[in-house]
């Protein structure tokens, strides 16, 4: 046996010194306590997890514990955590970090996350795991603090970059690691040059669909695990579509990656009930909408893209305030506006002013009174948000606003106000990731985003682990408008609302044809007739259906293998 034994001699020198000086000597009671403490802190076995015993505020789920154990015992602390959305990757990473810290194997830690999540990560590590994580704000933090959370964009810039390279990190955690799939980027290079003793890469989107991305991510974590770049691409076709094409490669990747699927966790999810509520415009609202729609065919409007007409249309479906705000902006931003342009805007503004009420808001009020419980209203527009708050207050209903741009403390404060004092939360963005609103189970989609992922995030705020009731989703759509087309032709057709979180991102990554939002803008903006629009929408939905079928086959295949 040739393991080097290190014997700490500093104790001995001091001891001899005290013998010579006849003290000072410690207190027997404290002496016994110190031994007692040390016996409690001892790690009796190489295997098993100590961390859960130290975390009274946290009850990890079985799959989270199993993942932490796997990473430590079988993956030697280097892993890609790729659970489906909503299964708690952050908890898994926290458990692993805590375990290594308790065992004294990790002291210095660098956590790189998207800028918007820095505070939240630091907060969760402190409150759930009692890990004194600091969010990086001053450059001395790199050197003086042991556990630092930062955005990768800050970290890779001077002067931070060089200071970071000088640190001796024991563990590096990277959230949203799928952004590192391209090995030609500065971010990739920055991470590649970090010394990675233990390393966790967290990714929400499944990466197993593109072979090059897999190679890059795995090579970042464990260079050589998939061979050298040339050897790798000699062996596997660069354009191979899926990992499933090759059993051997799949096996190799599974040695460094854990992906828990919702279905395997055995967690019961509550149901989603979706109700579409068709709403009719008042004559004045209809007139405003029509006036905006007519702009498309008017020649004078050529300077303006189809995009802003569509924006105005969508806003008209939300509130007159939203339309007004945009019109005012258009007028202000335009340099040297022509007389015609000004007239046209003025004409629209007069139409806005002619609208006396808001059909949707009235419906929302009625619904909220009927529900008689907490409700979250989502709208795309700030102006609508402010209007709704005023309108509900007029009718004796208390509400709080919520925006993605709020600082962490304000978000928490608003959440608390909503939970304890208000009936309604009016949110403009689902961007409040990490804010838990599971105590509420009613969502009103006052208007609809054109990006299905955004919609999924909205629902995901309340339909997540911890939600005990079935979730009720009410979709407002004004009849005979773009809104109704979106709802009927897209969302209902792909059964989006019935899906559980996570299925959707799988589906969307399978579709290799760009963002759905772009397609919608194209369909609504460029179609010359109703018929053309309908056909294009049909095409889009059948693409999505195709991806869905592909996914079903995959999961069948996976089930068959296991």
């Amino acid at each position, binding site marked *: 046996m040739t393991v080097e034994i*290190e014997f700490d001699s500093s104790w001995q020198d*001091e001891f001899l010194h005290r*013998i010579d000086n006849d003290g000072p*000597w*410690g207190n027997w009671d404290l002496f016994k*306590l110190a031994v007692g403490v040390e*016996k409690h802190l001892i*790690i009796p076995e190489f295997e098993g997890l100590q961390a859960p015993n130290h975390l009274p505020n946290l009850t990890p789920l079985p799959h989270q514990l199993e993942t932490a154990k796997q990473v430590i015992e079988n993956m*030697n602390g280097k892993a890609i955590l790729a659970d489906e959305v909503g299964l708690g990757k952050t908890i898994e990473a926290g458990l692993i970090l805590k375990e290594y810290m308790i065992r004294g194997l990790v002291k210095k830690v660098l956590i790189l996350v998207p800028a918007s999540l820095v505070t939240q990560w630091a907060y969760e590590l402190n409150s759930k795991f009692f890990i004194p994580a600091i969010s990086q704000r001053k450059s001395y933090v790199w050197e003086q603090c042991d556990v630092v959370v930062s955005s990768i964009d800050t970290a890779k810039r001077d002067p931070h970059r060089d200071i970071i390279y000088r640190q001796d990190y024991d563990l590096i955690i990277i959230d949203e690691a799928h952004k590192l799939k391209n090995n030609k980027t500065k971010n990739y290079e920055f991470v590649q040059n970090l010394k990675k003793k233990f390393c966790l890469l967290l990714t929400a989107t499944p990466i197993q669909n593109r072979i090059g991305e897999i190679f890059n991510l795995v090579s970042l974590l464990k260079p050589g695990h998939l061979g050298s770049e040339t050897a790798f691409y000699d062996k596997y076709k660069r354009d191979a579509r899926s990992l499933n094409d090759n059993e051997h490669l799949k096996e190799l990747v599974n040695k460094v990656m854990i992906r828990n699927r919702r279905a395997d966790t055995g967690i019961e999810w509550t149901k989603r009930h979706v109700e579409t509520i068709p709403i009719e415009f008042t004559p004045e609202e209809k007139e405003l909408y029509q006036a905006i729609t007519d702009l498309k065919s008017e020649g004078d409007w050529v300077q303006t893209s189809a995009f802003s007409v569509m924006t105005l249309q969508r806003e008209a479906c939300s509130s007159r305030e939203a339309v007004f705000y945009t019109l005012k902006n258009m007028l202000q931003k335009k340099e040297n506006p022509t007389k015609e342009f000004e007239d046209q805007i003025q004409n629209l503004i007069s139409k806005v002013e002619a609208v006396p009420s808001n059909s949707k808001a009235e419906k929302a009020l009625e619904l909220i009174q009927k529900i008689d419980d907490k409700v979250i209203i989502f709208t795309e527009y700030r102006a609508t948000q402010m209007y709704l708050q005023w309108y509900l207050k007029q009718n004796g209903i208390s509400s709080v606003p919520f925006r993605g741009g709020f600082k962490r403390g304000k978000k928490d404060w608003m959440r608390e106000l909503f939970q304890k004092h208000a009936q309604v939360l009016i949110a403009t963005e689902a961007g409040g990731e990490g804010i838990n609103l599971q105590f509420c189970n009613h969502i009103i989609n006052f208007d609809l985003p054109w990006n299905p992922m955004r919609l999924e995030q909205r629902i995901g705020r309340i339909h997540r682990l911890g939600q005990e009731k079935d979730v009720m989703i009410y979709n407002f759509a004004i009849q005979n408008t773009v809104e109704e087309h979106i709802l009927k032709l897209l969302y209902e057709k792909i059964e989006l609302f019935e899906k559980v979180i996570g299925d959707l991102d799988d589906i969307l990554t399978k579709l290799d044809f760009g963002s759905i939002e772009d397609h919608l803008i194209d369909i609504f903006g460029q179609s010359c007739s109703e018929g053309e629009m309908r056909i294009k929408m049909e095409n889009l939905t059948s693409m999505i259906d195709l991806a869905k079928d592909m996914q079903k086959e995959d999961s069948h295949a996976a089930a068959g293998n296991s």
Partner: protein
Amino acid sequence: MQQLEIHNFLIRYFQANECEITENGPGYLTVQLTIELDKELMNRPFYWHYLEKTGGIPNPMKLTFITNPQIAPEHIKGETVHFGSPRLHQIFQSTKKLASYIRLYENHRNGQQQTPLMPWLCMNVKISYQCDRKRDIYKSIGLQLINGQMIEDFHERLQKVQLTPKIPDYSFTLSPLVKPKSGMSRIENYLKAVINEDDHTWAEDARRRWEQDLRLLDHFYEDAEEENESYETEKKALQDQYEPKINISFINGGLFYLTDNAV
């Protein structure tokens, strides 16, 4: 450590440091710190510095700890401590720091009879086996400094002996034949011998994992023409991660003067 153990631990710690426990209720306790302990725990050097410069009246803090939120009365405000909380960890460190070295005498009941006390060297240590995983072994070794007798579980055996910091009347200590310094190296050699006889497949396994990853790394960089910086970094990282090491660190220890058959 269960919550009740933590509660009792805190009481013992503060009492050993001569702080008054002003309240001791279900699931909580309040303690009046002494000046010394305020300086030790509260981390407010500027306050103490200011006070010493201006000659003001020292006002050490009062702390309330909640050791079990479930049974503590609701109106009690304080720091919740549990195994793993930074405050408890700080107090653990402080305990170790304040009691690293000790010298005690057996408080024997031999009355007026002249009693010789034998010198014992005690070392309580933690042995850590470390690679990418870790386990610890606690050992308490006592070495009699006259005849060289060595025994394990020394600290545990001391628990049934009455001890006092002052030499009792009618007692005298025998001078050690083995000097403390060479006593310490005897214990060191003994510990190393014990370690050498242990099963170390863990280290072989770690080396195998290391070797495997190293091979992969070489393979990854085989196309690279010249010396590559990230290759060297990764190589060093693998060494830090896997290289098996054994550390012997001290918990505490000291000199004990005991009657002939005390342990």
